[in-house]
């Protein structure tokens, strides 16, 4: 059997089986889901080769599936992360109700993502796109309809995106006579500039909704925060990358063929949208009280960088974008799993209440620490490599506006240190609270995926070439050649960063310092609780709360106050209110009263009698 079809079928069968298994024993549901995703991953990594392709004929035309180096990169990302998250989900969802419902949609989402990756024509991509939207929507409303109407918002934006994509597909088909992605790439240059812009903008809206680019982002923070964390790891880590997948196809190969690719405005507007998204989202992330929301805004910000990289379009920047996409999937997946573990063990994710979980959940803390270091882009972990390439590509691009763009990106990623620290401090550090004394480390089945992924970030930091190789292959397939080296980063001016001496220096100094501190000291010292601290002579009462976690960044909030006054949400709400009053007006016409309708019929007939003769008797 064709291996592509096999991957999809296994995932589909896993969805159905895990739904049914819930009837026998709830825990089996998660196990079924994990096994099917694991089997699909094994087949994908062992069996699938570039030669695989297939066509499913459906009355008159056929759906085409295939795989290339670019889609392999995204497919590997989807299945690679999903395996870990599925394992985690078994323990995370244990004891919750409607497991069949959850795992059915969970598997279906992953199947749809693999389908999107495999599609080589727009129609099957659109079908899988809609399956992905619907199954993820059903998981968002897993906990019921919340007061913010999160699911509704997600659905409205997804519908806008879906229609935009549908329209783009139809327009390109009517102009080029083909649904194939490859035909759009080759034929794009022959279209008029207006049609190029139309197709481009419609597709960008479609993919922009999923990757939460401003101004289409308003659904994202709540949707990420309100779904079960085991799914958010997929939602933020992978589902948003499907938007990047589509944008990549357009920006790397399609626009390069057309005249619109050469007009600087188009890609520059996108790059600036990405940068502004990342700055604003970062500012919102650092005023959040809830760790889930913090990560949700942070996801939007990180996707902003990726869009900047794609839009700039130099080989180095595309490489940076794809690198960041993969690394973001790993660390944000891990971080959402961390928050899920904390939520499950401590019962809340409010950073103003929580604190000092480091001694209770050390392994979870370790995973969180590595992921946060990667998120902040501090060397020597994987996140730094991507950030470095992005900055260098902007600085070496030789275009004036990009130098200010790099400042925007830098502002956002420096401010990211603030929420990075807030996250670790709020959950794991600070004052110990008696109400969290009972908290224990999460079960091993949750800890193992987190720690393995965190260690993966270390490996990518030491040997970024492991990731450069598939990315360079993907870019070569898209027609962009790029040089890479296992441990050396370099830009077009020939400046380099060597990871090897960096790691040596850090490891050697760290070992020396830690040994020095530990030698003779660690054994002779005793651990004291966080109540036993320097308080300038005052002795706090037992009930006095000395935690500093409310309004953590108040000074910074004051400094950025002017920026935060405006919210995109308000504009959409105004549009919504406008539409509601429009529908209210329509309601005045359709009163539901038979007598009113009778009047309408009479009015219509009298108009017809009065002017009908001149119209019909020509």
């Amino acid at each position, binding site marked *: 059997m064709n291996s592509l079809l096999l991957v999809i079928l296994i995932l589909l069968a896993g969805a159905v089986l895990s739904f049914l298994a819930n009837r026998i024993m709830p825990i089996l549901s998660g196990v079924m889901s994990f096994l099917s995703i694991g089997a699909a991953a094994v087949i994908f990594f062992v069996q699938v080769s570039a030669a695989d392709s297939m066509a499913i004929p459906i009355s008159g035309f056929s759906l085409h599936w295939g795989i290339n180096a670019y889609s392999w990169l995204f497919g590997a990302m989807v299945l690679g992360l999903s395996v870990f998250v599925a394992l985690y989900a078994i323990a995370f969802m244990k004891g919750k109700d409607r497991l069949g419902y959850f795992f059915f949609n969970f598997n279906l989402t992953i199947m749809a993502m693999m389908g999107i990756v495999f599609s080589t024509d727009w129609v099957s991509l659109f079908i899988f796109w809609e399956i992905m939207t619907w199954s993820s929507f059903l998981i968002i409303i897993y906990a019921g309809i919340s007061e913010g109407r999160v699911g509704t918002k997600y659905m409205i934006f997804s519908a806008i995106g879906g229609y935009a994509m549908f329209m783009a597909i139809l327009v390109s088909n009517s102009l080029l006579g083909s649904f194939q992605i490859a035909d759009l790439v080759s034929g794009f240059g022959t279209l008029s500039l207006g049609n190029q812009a139309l197709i481009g903008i419609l597709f960008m809206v479609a993919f922009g909704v999923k990757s939460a680019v401003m101004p289409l982002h308003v659904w994202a923070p709540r949707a990420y925060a309100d779904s079960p964390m085991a799914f958010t790891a997929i939602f933020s880590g992978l589902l948003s990358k499907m938007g990047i997948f589509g944008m990549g196809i357009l920006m790397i190969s399609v626009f390069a063929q057309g005249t619109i690719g050469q007009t600087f405005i188009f890609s520059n507007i996108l790059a600036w949208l990405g940068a502004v998204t990342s700055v604003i989202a970062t500012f919102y992330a650092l005023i959040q009280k809830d760790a889930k929301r913090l990560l949700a805004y942070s996801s939007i910000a990180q996707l902003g960088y990726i869009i900047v990289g794609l839009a700039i379009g130099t080989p180095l920047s595309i490489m940076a974008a794809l690198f960041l996409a993969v690394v973001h999937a790993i660390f944000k997946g891990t971080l959402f799993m961390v928050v899920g573990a904390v939520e499950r063990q401590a019962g809340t994710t409010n950073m103003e209440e929580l604190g000092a979980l*480091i*001694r209770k959940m*050390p392994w979870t803390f370790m995973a969180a620490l590595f992921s946060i*270091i990667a998120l*902040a882009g*501090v*060397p020597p972990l994987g996140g730094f490599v991507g*950030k*470095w390439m992005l*900055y*260098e590509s902007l600085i070496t691009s030789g275009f*004036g506006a990009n*130098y*200010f763009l*790099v*400042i925007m990106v*830098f*502002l956002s990623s*420096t*401010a990211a*240190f603030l929420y*990075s*620290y807030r996250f*670790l*401090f709020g959950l794991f*550090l*600070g*004052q*110990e609270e008696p109400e969290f004394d009972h908290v224990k480390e999460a079960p091993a089945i949750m800890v193992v995926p987190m720690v393995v992924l965190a260690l993966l970030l270390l490996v990518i930091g030491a040997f970024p070439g492991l990731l450069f190789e598939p990315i360079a292959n993907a870019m070569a397939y898209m027609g962009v050649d790029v040089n890479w080296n296992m441990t050396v980063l370099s*830009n077009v*001016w020939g*400046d*380099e*960063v*060597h990871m090897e*001496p*960096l790691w040596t220096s850090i490891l050697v*100094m*760290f070992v020396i*310092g*830690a040994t*020095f*501190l*530990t030698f*003779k000291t660690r054994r002779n*010292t005793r*651990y*004291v609780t*966080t*109540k036993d*601290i*320097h308080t300038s002579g005052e002795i706090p009462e037992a009930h006095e709360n*000395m*935690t*500093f976690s409310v309004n953590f*960044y108040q*000074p*910074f909030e*004051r*400094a950025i106050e002017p920026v935060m006054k405006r919210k995109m949400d308000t504009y959409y709400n105004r549009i919504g209110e406008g539409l509601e009053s429009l529908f209210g007006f329509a309601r005045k016409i359709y009163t539901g009263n038979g007598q009113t309708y009778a009047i309408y019929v009479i009015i219509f007939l009298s108009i017809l009698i009065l002017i009908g003769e001149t119209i019909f008797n020509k």
Partner: protein
Amino acid sequence: MDEFWMKIIGFVATVLLAFVVGAVYGGLVRKIIARTQNRIGPPWYQNFIDILKLYSKSSAINHGFMQHIAPAMAITASVTVLMFVPVLTGDGWFPWFENLNFKGDLIFLVYMMVFGSLGMALGIGQTGNPNAAIGVSRGLSMMVGYEIPFVMALVALMVQTETTSITGLMEYQDQHGWLMFSSPFAFIAAVMAMLGMFHYGPFDVAFAPSELASGPPSEFGGKYLALMMTSGSIFAFAKLVLFVDIFMNGASNLIILVIKTLVLYMIPVLYGAVSPRYRTEQAIRYFWGWPTFFGALAIIFAIYY
């Protein structure tokens, strides 16, 4: 093998030099600030006495793993930054001071500089001292302030010289003269950012002695504090050498290096000695005002250079 040992000797010599110069500067600063406040002040070697005393002390308590290794993270970052900054140029008196300087670039250094503060911040967080946490919150907030003009200045330099490595910048200066003069706006922006970077008044919000009981380091004593002070001295020196390298074409021998770094260091010190403390948001707005304006000017200047 000989080459390897030469490198090790060079490494140790560089770190020692950085520590000695940094600690002497620290002592001088204490003296200068004391004199401006009409006090006599400690002798210039006071920092050595303090550090030696602290190293000989033993600690009785710890606050957990993160707090225990935080000073090690700080010294790791300081020494690593120092390793990537060329201390002396050419065949100066000490040919050892070459280190790793050709293997990193400016963007990397900017990020590497944060490593230590982030490690320290984590250790400080575990102690649970509210004053320390307030200090960290203020310090990180202000960092967002001063990094913006600093990076603008760096971007301007990189665009103007078409290189992102420090050695590249120095080669450019060999041919075209000091960047301090050929890129004046970048220099102004960078120096203004430097005021915040050294945490002297009016930007001493993070360590505010009378307000936060010295804030971040307040739970660290003995060896922990000694290692932190050592790391601080090395880091201050590394930052100064970085500024000298990118704006004043480095130094070919120790005397010139000391003169150049000392002159540069006096700017934040003297500015700080006479200024009362800002509130944190005022400090942030300060950096996003004129310094950022000059940074933008520097980039525009570099584009049309």
